Protein backbone atom coordinates (compact mmCIF):
# COMPACT_ATOMS: atom_id res chain seq x y z
CA UNK A 1 0.00 0.00 0.00
CA UNK A 2 1.35 3.41 -0.95
CA UNK A 3 0.66 6.33 1.45
CA UNK A 4 0.50 9.70 -0.28
CA UNK A 5 2.33 12.79 1.03
CA UNK A 6 -1.05 14.38 1.74
CA UNK A 7 -2.10 11.40 3.88
CA UNK A 8 1.22 11.48 5.74
CA UNK A 9 0.68 15.17 6.55
CA UNK A 10 -2.86 14.46 7.75
CA UNK A 11 -1.60 11.63 9.94
CA UNK A 12 1.07 13.82 11.50
CA UNK A 13 -1.43 16.61 12.17
CA UNK A 14 -3.77 14.07 13.76
CA UNK A 15 -1.03 12.77 16.05
CA UNK A 16 0.03 16.26 17.10
CA UNK A 17 -3.59 17.15 17.86
CA UNK A 18 -4.11 14.01 19.95
CA UNK A 19 -0.91 14.66 21.88
CA UNK A 20 -1.96 18.25 22.48
CA UNK A 21 -5.37 17.20 23.81
CA UNK A 22 -3.78 14.64 26.12
CA UNK A 23 -1.35 17.27 27.40
CA UNK A 24 -4.19 19.77 27.90
CA UNK A 25 -6.22 17.28 29.92
CA UNK A 26 -3.25 16.64 32.20
CA UNK A 27 -2.67 20.37 32.64
CA UNK A 28 -6.36 21.03 33.38
CA UNK A 29 -6.42 18.30 36.03
CA UNK A 30 -3.32 19.73 37.69
CA UNK A 31 -4.32 23.40 37.46
CA UNK A 32 -7.82 22.84 38.80
CA UNK A 33 -6.81 20.13 41.28
CA UNK A 34 -9.43 17.73 39.88
CA UNK A 35 -8.82 14.93 42.33
CA UNK A 36 -9.96 11.45 41.26
CA UNK A 37 -10.15 12.55 37.59
CA UNK A 38 -7.93 10.91 34.98
CA UNK A 39 -7.25 12.31 31.49
CA UNK A 40 -9.20 9.38 30.04
CA UNK A 41 -12.28 10.50 32.04
CA UNK A 42 -12.44 13.76 30.08
CA UNK A 43 -14.22 13.48 26.74
CA UNK A 44 -12.69 15.67 24.03
CA UNK A 45 -16.02 17.23 23.13
CA UNK A 46 -17.77 17.23 26.52
CA UNK A 47 -18.59 20.71 27.84
CA UNK A 48 -16.12 21.84 30.49
CA UNK A 49 -18.64 24.08 32.25
CA UNK A 50 -22.06 23.27 33.66
CA UNK A 51 -22.41 19.62 32.71
CA UNK A 52 -19.29 17.58 31.96
CA UNK A 53 -16.56 18.59 34.42
CA UNK A 54 -18.89 21.07 36.13
CA UNK A 55 -16.39 23.91 36.19
CA UNK A 56 -17.36 27.48 37.15
CA UNK A 57 -16.33 31.07 36.43
CA UNK A 58 -13.22 30.99 38.65
CA UNK A 59 -12.08 27.87 36.82
CA UNK A 60 -12.46 29.74 33.52
CA UNK A 61 -10.00 32.35 34.82
CA UNK A 62 -7.63 29.56 35.86
CA UNK A 63 -7.85 28.11 32.33
CA UNK A 64 -7.05 31.51 30.83
CA UNK A 65 -3.94 31.61 33.05
CA UNK A 66 -3.09 28.07 31.92
CA UNK A 67 -3.19 29.15 28.26
CA UNK A 68 -1.04 32.17 28.97
CA UNK A 69 1.57 30.33 31.03
CA UNK A 70 1.90 27.15 29.01
CA UNK A 71 1.20 28.34 25.46
CA UNK A 72 1.95 32.08 25.68
CA UNK A 73 -1.54 32.83 24.39
CA UNK A 74 -3.43 35.70 25.93
CA UNK A 75 -7.21 35.72 25.45
CA UNK A 76 -8.14 39.41 25.42
CA UNK A 77 -11.82 39.21 24.55
CA UNK A 78 -14.02 37.46 27.17
CA UNK A 79 -16.59 36.58 24.48
CA UNK A 80 -13.87 34.79 22.56
CA UNK A 81 -12.89 32.99 25.77
CA UNK A 82 -16.35 31.50 26.12
CA UNK A 83 -16.03 29.79 22.73
CA UNK A 84 -12.43 28.69 23.29
CA UNK A 85 -13.12 27.10 26.68
CA UNK A 86 -16.14 25.09 25.55
CA UNK A 87 -14.27 21.77 25.49
CA UNK A 88 -10.80 20.27 25.33
CA UNK A 89 -11.29 19.97 21.56
CA UNK A 90 -12.06 23.69 21.16
CA UNK A 91 -9.10 24.65 23.38
CA UNK A 92 -6.74 22.42 21.38
CA UNK A 93 -8.00 23.80 18.07
CA UNK A 94 -7.51 27.35 19.32
CA UNK A 95 -3.96 26.62 20.51
CA UNK A 96 -3.10 24.95 17.21
CA UNK A 97 -4.52 27.85 15.20
CA UNK A 98 -2.40 30.31 17.17
CA UNK A 99 0.73 28.20 16.87
CA UNK A 100 0.29 27.85 13.10
CA UNK A 101 -0.30 31.61 12.84
Amino acid at each position, binding site marked *: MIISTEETKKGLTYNIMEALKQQLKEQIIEALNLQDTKPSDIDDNAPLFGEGLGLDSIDSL*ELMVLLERNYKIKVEDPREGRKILQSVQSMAEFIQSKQVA
Partner: protein
Amino acid sequence: MLNKCYIQATSAISPQHTFEGEFHTQPFVASTRNLLNVIEPNYSGFISPNNLRRMSRLLKIGQTAALKCLVGSEFPVPGAIITGTGKGSLHDTEKFLKNIREYEETALNPTPFIQSTYNAVNGLIALQQKCTSYNNTFVHRGFSFESALQDTLMQLQEGVESVLVGSFEEMSEEHFYIKGRIGHWKEGATNETFLADNQTTGSIAGEGSAYFLVTAKPASRNLAVIEGVEMVYKPTTEQLGNRLQKFLAQHGNPTIDVLLTGENGDANFAHYYQYLHQQFSPSTTIIPFKQLCGEYDTASSFATWLATEILVHQSLPLSLQAYNTASLQNVQHVLIYNNFMGEQHSFILLSK
Protein backbone atom coordinates in the same frame (compact mmCIF):
# COMPACT_ATOMS: atom_id res chain seq x y z
CA MET B 1 -21.67 48.64 79.17
CA LEU B 2 -22.65 46.01 76.61
CA ASN B 3 -25.07 43.23 77.46
CA LYS B 4 -23.88 39.66 77.90
CA CYS B 5 -24.55 36.87 75.40
CA TYR B 6 -25.41 33.19 75.64
CA ILE B 7 -23.32 30.50 73.95
CA GLN B 8 -25.55 27.97 72.20
CA ALA B 9 -22.92 25.96 70.33
CA THR B 10 -19.15 25.82 69.97
CA SER B 11 -16.59 24.12 67.78
CA ALA B 12 -12.82 24.16 67.58
CA ILE B 13 -10.14 22.77 65.32
CA SER B 14 -6.90 22.92 67.25
CA PRO B 15 -3.66 21.00 67.87
CA GLN B 16 -5.61 19.02 70.49
CA HIS B 17 -8.46 16.56 69.91
CA THR B 18 -11.12 19.26 70.06
CA PHE B 19 -13.13 18.62 66.90
CA GLU B 20 -14.18 15.00 66.99
CA GLY B 21 -14.93 12.87 69.98
CA GLU B 22 -14.67 13.80 73.62
CA PHE B 23 -11.93 16.38 74.23
CA HIS B 24 -12.32 16.16 77.99
CA THR B 25 -10.92 12.63 78.16
CA GLN B 26 -8.28 12.98 75.44
CA PRO B 27 -4.56 13.07 76.36
CA PHE B 28 -2.35 16.12 75.81
CA VAL B 29 -0.87 16.43 72.30
CA ALA B 30 2.63 17.91 72.33
CA SER B 31 4.84 19.07 69.50
CA THR B 32 8.51 18.25 69.36
CA ARG B 33 9.68 21.20 67.25
CA ASN B 34 8.07 24.18 68.96
CA LEU B 35 5.23 24.27 66.43
CA LEU B 36 1.73 23.04 67.15
CA ASN B 37 -0.27 22.36 63.99
CA VAL B 38 -3.98 21.62 64.11
CA ILE B 39 -5.34 18.09 63.85
CA GLU B 40 -7.18 18.35 60.55
CA PRO B 41 -10.60 16.69 60.45
CA ASN B 42 -12.25 14.90 57.55
CA TYR B 43 -13.63 17.83 55.56
CA SER B 44 -15.77 15.82 53.15
CA GLY B 45 -18.75 15.73 55.50
CA PHE B 46 -18.90 19.52 55.51
CA ILE B 47 -17.65 20.75 52.12
CA SER B 48 -18.49 19.39 48.66
CA PRO B 49 -15.62 17.80 46.67
CA ASN B 50 -15.99 20.44 43.95
CA ASN B 51 -15.36 23.21 46.49
CA LEU B 52 -12.73 21.30 48.45
CA ARG B 53 -10.41 20.95 45.46
CA ARG B 54 -9.93 24.70 45.27
CA MET B 55 -9.77 25.58 48.95
CA SER B 56 -6.53 26.14 50.81
CA ARG B 57 -5.87 24.62 54.22
CA LEU B 58 -7.03 27.59 56.30
CA LEU B 59 -10.25 27.99 54.34
CA LYS B 60 -11.05 24.34 54.91
CA ILE B 61 -10.26 24.63 58.62
CA GLY B 62 -12.20 27.89 59.05
CA GLN B 63 -15.27 26.84 57.12
CA THR B 64 -15.48 23.36 58.61
CA ALA B 65 -15.22 24.65 62.18
CA ALA B 66 -17.94 27.23 61.43
CA LEU B 67 -20.28 24.70 59.84
CA LYS B 68 -19.82 22.24 62.71
CA CYS B 69 -20.94 25.02 65.06
CA LEU B 70 -24.07 25.72 63.01
CA VAL B 71 -25.08 22.18 62.04
CA GLY B 72 -27.95 20.97 64.18
CA SER B 73 -28.22 24.28 65.99
CA GLU B 74 -31.35 26.30 66.54
CA PHE B 75 -29.92 29.03 64.29
CA PRO B 76 -28.42 27.43 61.14
CA VAL B 77 -28.62 30.83 59.44
CA PRO B 78 -27.27 33.28 62.01
CA GLY B 79 -28.21 36.95 62.12
CA ALA B 80 -24.56 37.91 61.58
CA ILE B 81 -21.21 36.27 60.85
CA ILE B 82 -18.31 37.99 62.60
CA THR B 83 -14.75 36.70 62.70
CA GLY B 84 -11.26 37.73 63.64
CA THR B 85 -7.95 36.72 62.11
CA GLY B 86 -4.49 38.12 62.57
CA LYS B 87 -3.07 37.02 59.24
CA GLY B 88 -5.73 35.19 57.22
CA SER B 89 -4.57 32.58 54.76
CA LEU B 90 -0.77 32.71 54.87
CA HIS B 91 -0.40 29.86 52.35
CA ASP B 92 -2.46 31.70 49.73
CA THR B 93 -0.68 34.98 50.37
CA GLU B 94 2.71 33.31 49.99
CA LYS B 95 1.59 31.48 46.83
CA PHE B 96 0.25 34.68 45.28
CA LEU B 97 3.42 36.64 46.10
CA LYS B 98 5.61 33.86 44.68
CA ASN B 99 3.53 33.90 41.48
CA ILE B 100 4.00 37.66 41.16
CA ARG B 101 7.75 37.21 41.32
CA GLU B 102 7.94 34.09 39.15
CA TYR B 103 5.67 35.34 36.36
CA GLU B 104 6.73 38.99 36.63
CA GLU B 105 3.25 40.24 37.52
CA THR B 106 1.56 38.49 34.59
CA ALA B 107 -0.57 35.32 34.37
CA LEU B 108 -1.50 35.27 38.04
CA ASN B 109 -3.87 32.60 39.33
CA PRO B 110 -7.09 34.11 40.69
CA THR B 111 -7.69 31.45 43.38
CA PRO B 112 -4.83 32.26 45.79
CA PHE B 113 -5.55 35.97 45.35
CA ILE B 114 -9.23 35.52 46.25
CA GLN B 115 -8.45 33.22 49.16
CA SER B 116 -5.69 35.39 50.54
CA THR B 117 -8.22 38.12 51.33
CA TYR B 118 -9.12 38.07 55.01
CA ASN B 119 -12.88 37.83 54.55
CA ALA B 120 -12.76 34.78 52.25
CA VAL B 121 -13.76 32.40 55.06
CA ASN B 122 -16.72 34.56 56.07
CA GLY B 123 -17.88 34.75 52.47
CA LEU B 124 -17.78 30.98 52.09
CA ILE B 125 -19.74 30.42 55.31
CA ALA B 126 -22.35 32.95 54.19
CA LEU B 127 -22.64 31.34 50.74
CA GLN B 128 -22.97 27.86 52.18
CA GLN B 129 -25.63 28.88 54.72
CA LYS B 130 -27.33 31.38 52.38
CA CYS B 131 -26.80 34.06 55.03
CA THR B 132 -27.20 37.52 53.53
CA SER B 133 -27.04 39.51 56.75
CA TYR B 134 -24.18 41.38 58.48
CA ASN B 135 -20.77 39.91 57.69
CA ASN B 136 -17.50 41.26 59.02
CA THR B 137 -13.91 40.14 59.58
CA PHE B 138 -11.62 41.97 62.01
CA VAL B 139 -7.89 41.96 61.30
CA HIS B 140 -6.36 43.62 64.35
CA ARG B 141 -3.41 41.40 65.26
CA GLY B 142 -3.81 40.29 68.90
CA PHE B 143 -7.16 42.08 69.20
CA SER B 144 -8.76 40.38 66.18
CA PHE B 145 -10.95 37.90 68.05
CA GLU B 146 -11.69 40.36 70.86
CA SER B 147 -12.83 42.97 68.31
CA ALA B 148 -15.09 40.37 66.69
CA LEU B 149 -16.49 39.55 70.10
CA GLN B 150 -17.09 43.18 70.94
CA ASP B 151 -18.85 43.74 67.60
CA THR B 152 -20.95 40.64 68.34
CA LEU B 153 -22.09 42.10 71.65
CA MET B 154 -22.96 45.37 69.90
CA GLN B 155 -24.91 43.57 67.16
CA LEU B 156 -26.88 41.62 69.76
CA GLN B 157 -27.56 44.80 71.70
CA GLU B 158 -28.95 46.36 68.53
CA GLY B 159 -31.49 43.58 68.11
CA VAL B 160 -29.77 40.83 66.12
CA GLU B 161 -31.04 37.50 67.49
CA SER B 162 -28.00 35.28 66.91
CA VAL B 163 -24.40 35.69 65.79
CA LEU B 164 -21.76 33.23 64.62
CA VAL B 165 -18.50 34.60 66.01
CA GLY B 166 -15.11 32.98 65.67
CA SER B 167 -11.55 33.08 64.48
CA PHE B 168 -9.13 31.26 62.21
CA GLU B 169 -5.34 31.31 62.05
CA GLU B 170 -2.68 29.19 60.41
CA MET B 171 1.08 28.88 60.62
CA SER B 172 2.98 28.20 57.42
CA GLU B 173 6.47 26.76 57.31
CA GLU B 174 7.82 30.01 55.82
CA HIS B 175 6.16 32.22 58.40
CA PHE B 176 7.38 29.92 61.16
CA TYR B 177 10.92 30.24 59.79
CA ILE B 178 10.75 34.04 59.41
CA LYS B 179 9.34 34.58 62.91
CA GLY B 180 11.94 32.16 64.24
CA ARG B 181 14.68 34.38 62.79
CA ILE B 182 13.47 37.29 64.92
CA GLY B 183 13.26 35.21 68.07
CA HIS B 184 9.54 34.53 68.36
CA TRP B 185 10.03 30.82 69.01
CA LYS B 186 12.09 28.90 71.48
CA GLU B 187 15.19 27.13 70.28
CA GLY B 188 15.73 23.45 70.96
CA ALA B 189 13.53 21.09 72.91
CA THR B 190 10.88 22.65 75.14
CA ASN B 191 8.90 21.18 77.99
CA GLU B 192 5.50 21.89 76.50
CA THR B 193 3.38 20.35 79.21
CA PHE B 194 4.69 23.06 81.53
CA LEU B 195 5.34 25.66 78.83
CA ALA B 196 4.66 28.59 81.17
CA ASP B 197 7.53 27.48 83.40
CA ASN B 198 10.10 27.69 80.55
CA GLN B 199 11.38 31.13 81.36
CA THR B 200 13.63 31.64 78.38
CA THR B 201 12.74 33.95 75.52
CA GLY B 202 10.39 32.92 72.72
CA SER B 203 7.36 30.67 72.75
CA ILE B 204 5.92 27.86 70.64
CA ALA B 205 3.97 28.60 67.47
CA GLY B 206 0.37 27.57 67.10
CA GLU B 207 -2.74 27.82 64.98
CA GLY B 208 -6.42 27.04 65.18
CA SER B 209 -10.00 27.98 64.59
CA ALA B 210 -12.84 28.29 67.10
CA TYR B 211 -16.45 29.37 66.65
CA PHE B 212 -19.34 30.24 68.92
CA LEU B 213 -23.01 30.56 68.10
CA VAL B 214 -24.29 33.16 70.54
CA THR B 215 -27.68 34.70 71.25
CA ALA B 216 -28.86 37.84 72.98
CA LYS B 217 -31.42 35.92 75.04
CA PRO B 218 -31.27 32.48 76.63
CA ALA B 219 -32.23 29.78 74.12
CA SER B 220 -32.27 25.99 74.16
CA ARG B 221 -28.72 25.14 75.20
CA ASN B 222 -27.02 28.04 77.05
CA LEU B 223 -23.65 26.31 77.46
CA ALA B 224 -22.12 29.39 79.08
CA VAL B 225 -22.46 33.15 79.16
CA ILE B 226 -19.95 35.65 77.80
CA GLU B 227 -20.21 38.45 80.32
CA GLY B 228 -17.85 40.87 78.65
CA VAL B 229 -14.59 41.60 76.89
CA GLU B 230 -11.95 44.23 77.63
CA MET B 231 -8.96 45.28 75.55
CA VAL B 232 -5.91 47.15 76.82
CA TYR B 233 -3.13 48.32 74.52
CA LYS B 234 0.46 48.34 75.77
CA PRO B 235 -0.29 48.93 79.47
CA THR B 236 2.16 49.00 82.34
CA THR B 237 1.56 46.25 84.88
CA GLU B 238 -0.12 48.79 87.18
CA GLN B 239 -2.40 50.02 84.38
CA LEU B 240 -3.24 46.41 83.57
CA GLY B 241 -4.17 45.76 87.21
CA ASN B 242 -6.35 48.86 87.31
CA ARG B 243 -8.18 47.88 84.14
CA LEU B 244 -8.75 44.40 85.54
CA GLN B 245 -10.27 45.79 88.74
CA LYS B 246 -12.47 48.16 86.73
CA PHE B 247 -13.56 45.38 84.39
CA LEU B 248 -14.46 43.06 87.25
CA ALA B 249 -16.26 45.85 89.09
CA GLN B 250 -18.40 46.50 86.01
CA HIS B 251 -19.51 42.88 86.23
CA GLY B 252 -20.29 42.90 89.94
CA ASN B 253 -16.89 41.74 91.24
CA PRO B 254 -17.54 38.03 90.74
CA THR B 255 -15.43 35.38 92.44
CA ILE B 256 -13.14 34.06 89.74
CA ASP B 257 -13.02 30.28 90.07
CA VAL B 258 -10.65 29.70 87.16
CA LEU B 259 -8.20 32.11 85.55
CA LEU B 260 -7.02 30.94 82.15
CA THR B 261 -3.84 32.76 81.22
CA GLY B 262 -2.00 33.12 77.95
CA GLU B 263 1.37 32.45 79.61
CA ASN B 264 3.53 31.27 76.77
CA GLY B 265 6.90 30.66 78.42
CA ASP B 266 8.41 33.83 76.94
CA ALA B 267 10.44 35.61 79.61
CA ASN B 268 9.87 38.94 77.82
CA PHE B 269 6.22 39.01 78.86
CA ALA B 270 6.22 36.93 82.06
CA HIS B 271 6.04 40.00 84.34
CA TYR B 272 2.49 40.79 83.21
CA TYR B 273 1.32 37.35 84.27
CA GLN B 274 3.28 37.38 87.52
CA TYR B 275 1.68 40.71 88.43
CA LEU B 276 -1.77 39.44 87.54
CA HIS B 277 -1.36 36.28 89.63
CA GLN B 278 -0.98 38.53 92.68
CA GLN B 279 -4.39 40.09 92.02
CA PHE B 280 -6.21 36.85 92.77
CA SER B 281 -6.77 34.91 95.98
CA PRO B 282 -5.42 31.34 96.40
CA SER B 283 -8.94 30.01 95.83
CA THR B 284 -8.67 30.95 92.14
CA THR B 285 -7.29 28.09 90.07
CA ILE B 286 -4.79 29.61 87.65
CA ILE B 287 -4.10 27.59 84.51
CA PRO B 288 -2.14 28.56 81.39
CA PHE B 289 -3.59 27.42 78.07
CA LYS B 290 -0.99 28.04 75.34
CA GLN B 291 0.72 24.69 75.85
CA LEU B 292 -2.46 23.31 74.21
CA CYS B 293 -2.78 25.65 71.22
CA GLY B 294 0.52 27.49 70.82
CA GLU B 295 1.00 31.24 70.36
CA TYR B 296 -0.96 33.02 67.63
CA ASP B 297 -2.91 36.23 67.16
CA THR B 298 -6.32 34.76 67.98
CA ALA B 299 -5.32 32.23 70.67
CA SER B 300 -7.85 33.85 73.03
CA SER B 301 -10.64 32.25 70.96
CA PHE B 302 -9.24 28.83 71.87
CA ALA B 303 -9.22 29.96 75.51
CA THR B 304 -12.87 31.01 75.21
CA TRP B 305 -13.69 27.57 73.79
CA LEU B 306 -11.74 25.94 76.65
CA ALA B 307 -13.48 28.09 79.26
CA THR B 308 -16.85 26.99 77.89
CA GLU B 309 -15.75 23.34 78.15
CA ILE B 310 -14.70 23.84 81.78
CA LEU B 311 -18.00 25.54 82.63
CA VAL B 312 -20.02 22.80 80.92
CA HIS B 313 -18.10 19.87 82.46
CA GLN B 314 -17.37 21.61 85.79
CA SER B 315 -13.91 20.03 85.70
CA LEU B 316 -10.57 20.31 83.96
CA PRO B 317 -9.94 18.24 80.85
CA LEU B 318 -7.41 15.44 81.08
CA SER B 319 -4.92 17.46 79.01
CA LEU B 320 -4.77 20.12 81.75
CA GLN B 321 -4.75 17.96 84.81
CA ALA B 322 -0.94 17.90 84.92
CA TYR B 323 -1.26 21.51 86.06
CA ASN B 324 -3.80 21.20 88.81
CA THR B 325 -5.08 17.92 90.10
CA ALA B 326 -7.37 19.52 92.67
CA SER B 327 -10.92 18.85 91.61
CA LEU B 328 -12.88 21.92 90.77
CA GLN B 329 -16.33 22.33 92.21
CA ASN B 330 -19.12 24.67 91.30
CA VAL B 331 -17.25 26.67 88.67
CA GLN B 332 -19.33 29.80 88.17
CA HIS B 333 -16.87 32.25 86.62
CA VAL B 334 -13.88 31.78 84.32
CA LEU B 335 -11.71 34.75 83.42
CA ILE B 336 -9.34 34.70 80.47
CA TYR B 337 -6.32 36.97 80.42
CA ASN B 338 -4.15 36.97 77.33
CA ASN B 339 -1.54 39.19 75.80
CA PHE B 340 -0.08 39.00 72.34
CA MET B 341 3.60 39.92 72.13
CA GLY B 342 3.17 42.17 75.18
CA GLU B 343 1.15 44.68 73.15
CA GLN B 344 -2.47 43.60 72.91
CA HIS B 345 -3.85 42.58 76.31
CA SER B 346 -7.38 41.33 76.84
CA PHE B 347 -9.80 40.00 79.44
CA ILE B 348 -12.81 37.86 78.59
CA LEU B 349 -15.22 36.92 81.37
CA LEU B 350 -17.46 33.87 81.11
CA SER B 351 -19.99 32.50 83.56
CA LYS B 352 -22.14 29.39 83.98
